[in-house]
């Protein structure tokens, strides 16, 4: 299975096997996995901001869907909606911005990365939107095979170089420093 989307009340996440999707062995290349993971997160954020989501099937293929608009009358009259100055026709899954702002790379192992939330509040919120539990269903999270292909082609040259050539010392040292900083910030994340 190339990618697996899990939608559970306390855990909404997608695991992507980069080797199967991109045809490249990513094991031992943490910098590439972090870079691709961020590209996937950026893709989800950009698509959602434009009011579009994706309806994913079990095999990873997906159909672009419009996120249902406008917002419901009761929601548009709520104090939080008015305080945030939101527009009732522009559905972008943001009120405080926390849900979209906290999508993260949860796990990296071998050739796989897992995207989702490391946050007890945002998982149930995402679940609610993904399933339409108490609000209209708006499947904003996850990437399809086609979107992964787009990311692959965007990074094609970089990936080719990274696989074929040896990193120079300056780049290697820089990446090690960045990965070290990411680890430090990861450790502080739960305390925040």
């Amino acid at each position, binding site marked *: 299975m190339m990618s697996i989307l899990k939608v559970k009340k306390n855990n909404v996440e997608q695991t992507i096997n980069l080797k199967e999707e991109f045809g490249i062995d990513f094991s031992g290349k943490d*910098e*590439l996995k*972090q*870079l691709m*993971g*961020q590209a996937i*997160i*950026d893709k989800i954020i950009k698509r959602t901001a434009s009011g579009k989501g994706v309806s994913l099937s079990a095999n990873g293929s997906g159909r672009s869907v419009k996120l249902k608009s406008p917002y419901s009358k009761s929601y548009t009259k709520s*104090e*939080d909606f*008015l*305080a*945030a*100055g939101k527009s009732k026709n522009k559905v972008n899954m943001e009120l*405080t*911005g*926390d849900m979209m*702002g*906290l999508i*993260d*790379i949860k796990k990296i192992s071998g050739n796989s990365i897992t995207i989702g939330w490391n*946050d007890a*509040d945002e998982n149930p919120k995402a679940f609610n939107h993904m399933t339409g539990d108490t609000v209209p269903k708006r499947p904003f999270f996850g990437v399809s095979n086609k979107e992964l292909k787009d990311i692959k082609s965007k990074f094609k040259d*970089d*990936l080719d*170089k*990274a696989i074929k*050539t040896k*990193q*120079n*010392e*300056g*780049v290697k*040292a*820089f*990446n090690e*420093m*960045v*990965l070290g*900083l*990411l680890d430090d*910030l*990861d450790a*502080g*994340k739960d305390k*925040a």
Partner: protein
Amino acid sequence: MPVRIKRSTVIATQISVTKKFEKVRRNKQMLNEIGEAVTTRVRLEARRRKPLNDTRTFPALTEGTKARRKALAKVNKTHPSFKPAKSSTTFTGQLLDAVTFKIRKTLVELFVAKSKRQAIKGARGKTLEEQIAFNNELAKELASRGFVIFTAKGLKSEPKLAKRINNIVRRTLRRALKVD
């Protein structure tokens, strides 16, 4: 066999790393994202009647103030979240819309802009000319009465916002990773 690294190579590597990292620290997109996240949260919390980074809520309104706000709302265009009986710093929305930020090298500085206010008709019986003309001056005046929009403390009482900022930095670091 021991690997020998020339001193000049090590120095060159260090310089190259520092320069590149400095680019990350001064990354405009990152600093702008942080500034946007903080100002948006300040406005939202103030409209929810709570200053950012403070557990206290705004002072309660007297019955007289509530009645005056209700009367003023009839002759002025108010912000959608305005409610006469609820203590907040939003009436027309001008003050909170003037909360903004400036980027100074690697620092994001939050402040209330010195932007001119549109007068409130009928406010405290004053003429339009007698009202506080600039948003930054109004923020100071409100703060002296306990309506502090944001404080200069860290983000200890705003864990979610602190987590967001942490994530903005981490996303920027990931995007800065080099492949060649």
